[in-house]
C-alpha cells in the first residue's frame, strides 16, 4: 500500500479536541432547538395570523352612491356600470411583465401605475386602484388574460354620471378619490381608493350618499391566483337625496346666463329653499368621474374665468344701488326722512370742494323718496346718507345680514365687509371721510357682499323682516335666521318703490304681465373693467313666492343686462305655477322626506 498508516496514538490531542467539537455541536443544536421553540410555541399565534393574511386578500366592493333628485324627482346624477382595475402589490409576482401588458392594454403610462403603487406601498395586501371607468370590452380583454397578469383585480363598479353636465355643477359638486389628508381627517371613515364627494352636495351629504362598502375575502396562492372565496359581505347602496332645486328653472337660469360670468340664485323667500343656483362659468363634473388627464385638469384650473369658483357664496362685490334700500331703511327708521322728503338732483353733488356725480348727468330734478329709488338717483342718496350717518347705515346693513355668513352650507362662504369708521381706521389707518359715507350710501366704496347676502336682504324685505337660512334639501321646522323688527310702514315704502322700479323704472325689462314683481337694479363700478350688472326681484309683491338675484360680472347696466335675465327666470316660474302653492313633489299627501330611499 502506498499510504503509510499512522497510528492513532500520534493523535494525542484527539480526545480533548473531539470533546470541544461535541460541545460546539450541542451548543449549536440547542440554539436551533430554542429557535424552533420560539417560532412554534411562543410565537405561533403571531405567525398563524401572518399565515392567514398571506393567503387572504380583502377586496372591497364599493357601494353605489345614492342618487340626487331634483324637487320633482328628476335624477340629477346617475350611476353607470363600469369596471375598475386594481393591483394587489403583494401578488405582483412578475411586476415588469404585468405592468407592461397592463399599460399596453389600457393605454396608460407605466410611470402613472408606478406612482399609484408607490402611494399604496404600505398596503401590500390591499388592491390599489390603477384605472377606473374602463368599458366592458376592455374589461373582458383583461379578464381573458388575467392568468398572465397575477395581482390584477377587475371589479364591477359604477361611474358617477351627471346627465345635465355643466347645469347645476356648482350645486352637485363632483366626486373624486379620497386623498391622504382626507383619510387622516376622516379618522377611519375612509380607506384608500374610496370615492368621496369633493364639493357641493356630493361633499356636504357624502355620509348619506356614500353607503357602505362590502368586501370579498379571497383566498389566493403565492402567485396571486384566486383559489377560492372565504367570505363575502355585500355592499349597501347609499341613500338618495331630494334637492329643493327645480331643474327646469335651473336650466332656464343657466341658459339665460350662457357665456356670461356671474351668479344667479333663485329662492323661495318663505322657507329659504333654493330653486336654482348658478355660478358661471361652470364646469363639467363628469370630467372628475373618470381619470382626468393632467392636461384637462390644468386647463380647468388655469382658466382665468375660474370655473371652479363658487360665485354665489364666494364672490365678493360691492352691492351697488341695491344697497340704497338699506340706506333708505336706515333713514326711515331713524326718522331722517319720510315718503315725501324731497331733494334735488342736478346731476352732481358738491361736498366742500369735492364733486360726487349722479349716474344721470342731466340730473333727476326735485324728487321724492319713491322716485329716488325707482330711478336710482345717486345725489338723493348722497344727501340721505350724510344725514343718516354711517353708523346707522352700517347697523341696518348688519341687521339685514351683511357682514356675516348666510348659513348656506354648500362650501365655505365669504362673509364680506360692512365698513364703519373704526373698521377703516383700524385697517387703513385713515380717518373716515364724509365721502366714504356717500359712497357707502349708494353701495360702493369699502362695502363687500356676496350675491347670497344680497338675496337674503331681499328676502327680509319680501317677508317684512324675516329670512330663512338658504338650504338645498327639504328640511323640517325651518326657523328664521334673520329677524329685523322695524316698522311695517318702512317695508311698505320699500316694496312700493321696488314695485315701481319694475313697473316703470330701471327694472322695466323684468316686467311680466299679470304678476306684480318688485325689483332693484345695480350697476356696480368695477375698477378692472366694465361695470358689474345686478338685479334683484321678488314676487308676487302681495305674497312673495320667489326671489331672484342675477349678478353679471362686467355685464354693464343692471337694467339692460341683469333684469332681462331675471325676467326669463320669473316668466318660467310663473308660467309653471300660476298662483297655486309651490311645494315639493307630493306623495300620499305628504312631501318626500329627506334622505329617502326608493
Amino acid at each position: 500500500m502506498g499510504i503509510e498508516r499512522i497510528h492513532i496514538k500520534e493523535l494525542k490531542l484527539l480526545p480533548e479536541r473531539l470533546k470541544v467539537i461535541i460541545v460546539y455541536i450541542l451548543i449549536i443544536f440547542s440554539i436551533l432547538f430554542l429557535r424552533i421553540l420560539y417560532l412554534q410555541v411562543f410565537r405561533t399565534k403571531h405567525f398563524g395570523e401572518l399565515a392567514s393574511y398571506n393567503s387572504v386578500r380583502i377586496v372591497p366592493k364599493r357601494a353605489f352612491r345614492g342618487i340626487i333628485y331634483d324637487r320633482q324627482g328628476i335624477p340629477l346624477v346617475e350611476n353607470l356600470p363600469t369596471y375598475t382595475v386594481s393591483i394587489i402589490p403583494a401578488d405582483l409576482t412578475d411586476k415588469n411583465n404585468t405592468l407592461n401588458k397592463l399599460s399596453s392594454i389600457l393605454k396608460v403610462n407605466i410611470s402613472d401605475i408606478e406612482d399609484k403603487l408607490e402611494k399604496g406601498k404600505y398596503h401590500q395586501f390591499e388592491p390599489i386602484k390603477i384605472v377606473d371607468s374602463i368599458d366592458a370590452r376592455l374589461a373582458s380583454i383583461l379578464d381573458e388574460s388575467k392568468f398572465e397578469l397575477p395581482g390584477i383585480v377587475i371589479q364591477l363598479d359604477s361611474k358617477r354620471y351627471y346627465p345635465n353636465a355643466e347645469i347645476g355643477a356648482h350645486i352637485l359638486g363632483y366626486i373624486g378619490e379620497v386623498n391622504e389628508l382626507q383619510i387622516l381627517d376622516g379618522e377611519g371613515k375612509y380607506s384608500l381608493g374610496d370615492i368621496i364627494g369633493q364639493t357641493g352636495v356630493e361633499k356636504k351629504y357624502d355620509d348619506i350618499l356614500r353607503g357602505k362598502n362590502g368586501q370579498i375575502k379571497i383566498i389566493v396562492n403565492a402567485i396571486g391566483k384566486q383559489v377560492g372565496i372565504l367570505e363575502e359581505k355585500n355592499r349597501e347602496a347609499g341613500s338618495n337625496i331630494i334637492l329643493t332645486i327645480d331643474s327646469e328653472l335651473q336650466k332656464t337660469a343657466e341658459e339665460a346666463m350662457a357665456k356670461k360670468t356671474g351668479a344667479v340664485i333663485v329662492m323661495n323667500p318663505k322657507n329659504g329653499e333654493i330653486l336654482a343656483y348658478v355660478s358661471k362659468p361652470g364646469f363639467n363634473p363628469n370630467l372628475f368621474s373618470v381619470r382626468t388627464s393632467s392636461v384637462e385638469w390644468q386647463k380647468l384650473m388655469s382658466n382665468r374665468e375660474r370655473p371652479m369658483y363658487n360665485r354665489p357664496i364666494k364672490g365678493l362685490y360691492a352691492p351697488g344701488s341695491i344697497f340704497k334700500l338699506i340706506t333708505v331703511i336706515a333713514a326711515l327708521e331713524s326718522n331722517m326722512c319720510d315718503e315725501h322728503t324731497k331733494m334735488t338732483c342736478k346731476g352732481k353733488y358738491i361736498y366742500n370742494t369735492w364733486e360726487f356725480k349722479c349716474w344721470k348727468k342731466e340730473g333727476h330734478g326735485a324728487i321724492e323718496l319713491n322716485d329716488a329709488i325707482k330711478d336710482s338717483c345717486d345725489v338723493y342718496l348722497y344727501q340721505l346718507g350724510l344725514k343718516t350717518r354711517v353708523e346707522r347705515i352700517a347697523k341696518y346693513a348688519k341687521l339685514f345680514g351683511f357682514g356675516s355668513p348666510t348659513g348656506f352650507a354648500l362650501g365655505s362662504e365669504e362673509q364680506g365687509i360692512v365698513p364703519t369708521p373704526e373698521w377703516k381706521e383700524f385697517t387703513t389707518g385713515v380717518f373716515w371721510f364724509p365721502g366714504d359715507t356717500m359712497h357707502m350710501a349708494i353701495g360702493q366704496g369699502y362695502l363687500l357682499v356676496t350675491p347670497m347676502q344680497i338675496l337674503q336682504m331681499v328676502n327680509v324685505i319680501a317677508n317684512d323682516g324675516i329670512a330663512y337660512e338658504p338650504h338645498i334639501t327639504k328640511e323640517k321646522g325651518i326657523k328664521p335666521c334673520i329677524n329685523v323688527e322695524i316698522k311695517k310702514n318702512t317695508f311698505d315704502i320699500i316694496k312700493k318703490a321696488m314695485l315701481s322700479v319694475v313697473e316703470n323704472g330701471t327694472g322695466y325689462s323684468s316686467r311680466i304681465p299679470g304678476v306684480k314683481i318688485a325689483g332693484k337694479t345695480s350697476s356696480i363700478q368695477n375698477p378692472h373693467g366694465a361695470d358689474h350688472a345686478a338685479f334683484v326681484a321678488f314676487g308676487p309683491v302681495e305674497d312673495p313666492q320667489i326671489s331672484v338675484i342675477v349678478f353679471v360680472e362686467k355685464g354693464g347696466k343692471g337694467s339692460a343686462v341683469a333684469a332681462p335675465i331675471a325676467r326669463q327666470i320669473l316668466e318660467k316660474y310663473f308660467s309653471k305655477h300660476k298662483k297655486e302653492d309651490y311645494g315639493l313633489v307630493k306623495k300620499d299627501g305628504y312631501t318626500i322626506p329627506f334622505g329617502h330611499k326608493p
Partner: protein
Amino acid sequence: MRLQRDLDYLLIAGTLILVLFGIIMIYSSTHNFAYNPDFGTYYLRQFMWAIFGLILMFVIANIDYQILIEVSHIFYILTLVLLIATFLFGGRIAGAQRWFRLGPISIQSSEIAKISIILMLVRFFTDQKGKIGIVSGLFFAFIIVMIPMALIIKQPDLGTALLFIPTVFCMLYIVGVRLKYLGYILGGFAFSFPFIWLLLKEYQKLRLLTFLNPGMDPRGAGYNVIQSQIAIGSGGFFGKGLMHGTQVQLNFVPEHHTDFIFAVIGEEVGFFGVLIILLLYLFIIFQGIKIVTLARDMTGVLIAIGITTLIAIQTIINIGMTMGILPVTGIPLPFMSYGGSSLLTNMCAIGILLSVHRCSTKFLG
C-alpha cells in the same frame, strides 16, 4: 441474503428514516402539482434516487477506506474536470451554472466536490505523516481546497463553497494543528473574503445583507426567509397535518420541496415532528463521532471527522437559514431535500463512514 454483521445498523437506520420521511414530505409538498406539472413525479424520482443511493452506500461500505484514499487524487482531478466542464458547458438553472448534463441525468458537480475534497485532503494529511508544516502543509491544503472552491463560487454556489471552511477547519483541528496556526488559517480566510466578495453576484451580496433584516424587502431577497418562518411558526405544536400546510400548499414558501423542506416539516408536522427530525440528525452526527473514536488510524479519524462535520454543517446551515438565523445559501437539507445529486452524495458519505466503521471494528475483532 444474510445480514452483514460488521455494519453500523444504527447509522443506517437513522439515515433511512430521514430519507423516507423526506420522501413523504416531498410528496406532501408537491402532491398539488397545479403549479408545476412535473411535481407529480418528484417523490417517485426521489424514491428511485434513494434506492440507488442505498445500493451505492452498501457498495462503498464494503470497500476499504484505504482504497478510497488511494484513488482519491483521481476523484479529485475528475471533480475539477467536471467543475470546469460545468463552468464551460453547464446548464443554467435560476441564473446559476450548477448542473452538468451527462446523458439523461444532470449532475450537480458541487455536490460531488464535497466528498472528493475531503478525501483528497485526508490523503494529503496522511502523506504528511501527521507532521503538518506551515508552508508545505497548510499552504498546500489551502490550495487543494481553494481551486474547487473558487470554481464553485464562480458557478455561483457560494453556500456550498463556504461549507468547506468549517469542514477543513475541523479536520485540521482534529489532526492536532496548533491553535496558533488555526488562527492563521482563519485570518487567511478573513483576508481572502474581500476577494470572495468580488466573485459574488449581486443577489448573493443582497442575500447576505438582507439576512440581517429580512423584513426590508418582502418580495426580494428576504421574502423566502419570511415565508418559511411564517410557515414554521404557524405550524405550532402539532402542525397542520400532511398536505394541509396552507403556506406550502398555496406555494408561499418558495422551493419548498428542495431547500425549504424543513419549512414544510415545521408547518405540517409541527413542533413534535421537528423535534424528532432534529434528534435524528443529532443521532447521526453522534454515530459519526463514535466512528471517529473507533477509528484505528489517522486516515480513518480524518475521514470520519470530515464526513461527520460535512453532514452536521449542512444540517445546521439549512435549518438555521429556514428559521431565519443564518443567511439563505441554497444548501439542501441532507437526506431530506429533493434532488438526486445531494441525496446520492450524502448517502455515499454515510457509506464511507460505514466503511471506516467496518474496517475499524474488523481491526479489533
